[in-house]
């Protein structure tokens, strides 16, 4: 009886507070037309295979690849065996500059930028300012399994053993206005390397050099404290390169 009452109260809370969230009266018609046309759902471009592969790769190989220099576009995107395998023209890699970052809890360093037919790739190194904290990329979904264990490269470790008393700062970085894209991250002993490739950037701006606005969100997983901040990076003029090998 109590469970039923709780469910009823929950349902009532949702339906009351979200009462203006109602469906499209023409949805059934749209679906039938869409199905008849044998088309795919009209959705914005979502995650690429590359991201799924990358996240899986990162999670299972975090230990094994810790020594690799994944912060480098040449290493990360250009090597055989990596997900992207792009033709990298070293001369076209430029150094972005962070001109504004007003966050208090992270150190973020912009390393490289590269523009190809795949999109604009940017690399950052992200670290916690305080030694008793560690950074964790939002998309990595560090979540223990049913037994409270995390798995890396076939090895399990408890969350508590893994973080060793450090507070976990879960961060995310994205561009504004929002663009589709994909991201990789790689942990090392100092923090994480974060690489994003953005689709649909303004080519005229990239060609002449521009400033780009990003947002950074950090949530302390132990205390729940959240910091949202802005970041501006300055890109020198760039030249579009070929894409994948």
């Amino acid at each position, binding site marked *: 009886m109590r469970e039923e009452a709780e469910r009823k109260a929950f*349902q009532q809370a949702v339906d*009351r507070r979200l009462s*203006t969230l109602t469906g499209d009266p023409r949805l059934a018609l749209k679906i039938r037309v869409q199905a008849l046309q044998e088309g795919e759902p009209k959705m914005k471009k*979502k995650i690429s295979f590359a991201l799924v592969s990358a996240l899986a790769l990162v999670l299972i190989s975090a230990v094994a690849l810790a020594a690799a220099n994944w912060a480098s576009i040449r290493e990360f995107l250009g090597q055989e065996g990596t997900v992207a395998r792009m033709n990298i023209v070293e001369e076209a890699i430029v150094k972005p500059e962070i001109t504004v970052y007003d966050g208090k809890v992270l150190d973020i360093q912009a390393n490289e930028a590269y523009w190809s037919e795949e999109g604009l790739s940017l690399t950052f190194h992200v670290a916690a300012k305080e030694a008793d904290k560690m950074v964790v990329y939002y998309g990595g979904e560090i979540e223990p399994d049913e037994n409270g264990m995390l798995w890396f490269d076939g090895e399990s470790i408890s969350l508590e053993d893994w973080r060793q008393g450090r507070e976990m700062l879960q961060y995310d970085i994205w561009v504004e206005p929002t663009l589709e894209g994909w991201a990789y991250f790689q942990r090392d002993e100092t923090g994480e390397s974060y690489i994003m490739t953005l689709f649909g950037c303004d080519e005229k701006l990239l060609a002449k050099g521009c400033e780009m606005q990003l947002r950074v969100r950090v949530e302390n997983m132990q205390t729940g404290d959240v910091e949202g901040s802005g970041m501006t990076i300055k890109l020198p003029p760039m030249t579009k390169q070929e894409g994948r090998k």
Partner: protein
Amino acid sequence: MEDSAFEELVSQNQDKLLRTCYLYLRDRQLAEDAVQETFLKAYRSLPDFRGDSSQKTWLTRIAINTCRDLYRSEWFRHLDRRVTPEDLPERGASFSSREESLIVEVMRLPRKLREVTLLYYYHGMDEREIAEALDIARSSVSDRLSRARKKLKGMIEGRDEA
């Protein structure tokens, strides 16, 4: 399935699915995408629907798994994942502050706890149905529900009128 039957299926379920997807994904546009995809999948697979569960449960299962897929793609589109009452859709029906707080706290739950909470409390599914829908052990469902209840700090219990 006849057009009228499909229209009925959509009209009877889409508001609830939309609210579920919104609470799960914390993004109205993504939630609308998820509902559209859910019904498209349902439309295409209706001939294979075996009736082992109710159509409502079957649809919910498709929706929650669609949300799970979308969740992994959501990371780049969101503007900010902080959830405050001001982030919720515009107000309509009268509601209590406790109800609004409950919505916000549910949206702040970790994803795995959020999904079992929505299925159990909003959709009235039992632990076995949730385990089947999410393809996880029933003991995991119990564990996650227990953790969700603790995090919600008794907010589900008791009710006050608007």
